[in-house]
């Protein structure tokens, strides 16, 4: 069956929502069981005492990137049907910077705060609640940011095309880079004072 299955018309939109719940469950399980319901474990990456975020995040990026390319080359997936996050330079950079500040203050990102709330972490629940206020403030002040929101539009640009290389070569380089990072993370972690949490 050639993916994405939903676009093939073999399953109804109602089934797509059921798959959404199941995929979400896998997502939540993977995050919580890896330790992402603990803000002190997550934040360890930034102080060098626990690199679980780097290890999980980049392993997932490699597995999914490689998997999509393999499925596509085997003819099992129509890559052109996938939703590729469009690139808007200014908002990607400034939005990312703002998120980085919120990350360092709150110790969570949206998905992990939800996982923390699910296992009873009140700080996770409060972070998640704070997001609603932030989203509301952005939506209400949208006219102020509208220009930045749409500036630097590059469409569904793929990163390999920036370097003029194939998706396969880029992904191979990503794997090498990630292995280097995993090794570096282990090296640093062995030299940083342990923190009890």
């Amino acid at each position, binding site marked *: 069956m050639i*993916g*994405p299955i939903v676009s093939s018309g073999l399953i109804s939109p109602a089934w797509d929502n059921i798959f*959404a*719940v199941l*995929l*979400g*469950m896998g*997502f*939540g*399980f*993977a995050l919580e069981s*890896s*330790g992402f319901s*603990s803000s*002190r474990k997550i934040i360890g990456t930034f*102080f060098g005492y626990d690199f*679980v975020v780097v*290890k*999980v995040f980049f*392993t*997932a*990026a490699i*597995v*999914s*990137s490689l998997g*999509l390319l393999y499925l596509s080359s085997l003819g099992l997936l129509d890559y052109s049907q*996938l*939703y590729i*996050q469009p690139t808007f330079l200014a*908002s*990607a950079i*400034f*939005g*990312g910077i703002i*998120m*980085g*500040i*919120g990350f360092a*203050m709150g*110790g969570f*990102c949206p*998905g992990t705060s*939800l996982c923390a709330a*699910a*296992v*009873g*972490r009140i700080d*996770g629940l*409060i*972070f998640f609640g*704070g997001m*609603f206020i*932030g*989203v509301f*403030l*952005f939506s209400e002040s949208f006219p102020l940011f509208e220009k930045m929101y749409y500036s630097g539009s590059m469409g569904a640009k793929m*990163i*390999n095309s920036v370097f003029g290389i194939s*998706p396969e070569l*880029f992904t191979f380089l990503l794997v090498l880079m990630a292995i280097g990072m995993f090794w570096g993370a282990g090296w640093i972690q062995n030299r940083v004072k342990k923190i009890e949490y």
Partner: protein
Amino acid sequence: MKYDGSNYLNPYLGGVILGTVLLLSFYISGRGLGASGAVKNTVAATVNVIAPRHVEESAYYSQFAGGEHSPMSNWLVYEVLGVLAGAFLSGILFNRLKLKVEHSPKITSRRRLLFALLGGLIFGFGTQLARGCTSGAALSGMAVLSLGGYITMVAIFGTAFGAAWIFRKNWI
């Protein structure tokens, strides 16, 4: 194996599971995983109930709510309900279900909660500007080699490294 909530999966195994779920998401639904989108839809739907005219006139809300949109019956909303359930099941399995405020022993719970609220607020604001969060924009973007996904990922982690140092008294 201790059964006191301190057990976690090997991070590489956790990453393989997460990557496989993300891969399945693209294979089945043609899209990646997200978290902030559900918050956006909930906010837009709530404002639409209270002030439908305002939603209609807003260049932002009107993209998701009002008119033909049904923001609460949306893939992202169902997916996020699943996240809650999946994390809860993992919490049962690893014996981590406990009502508490997690914080460094050097700060009070009150301070932790204040920073969690502010952090969530700021992060939430950023998710709308960048059209997605760490999962929806960064991770899912990276899976399909989106340039924007990579840029957002570098901006989030790069800034957080610097900002964590500023807020270090809250953590270490």
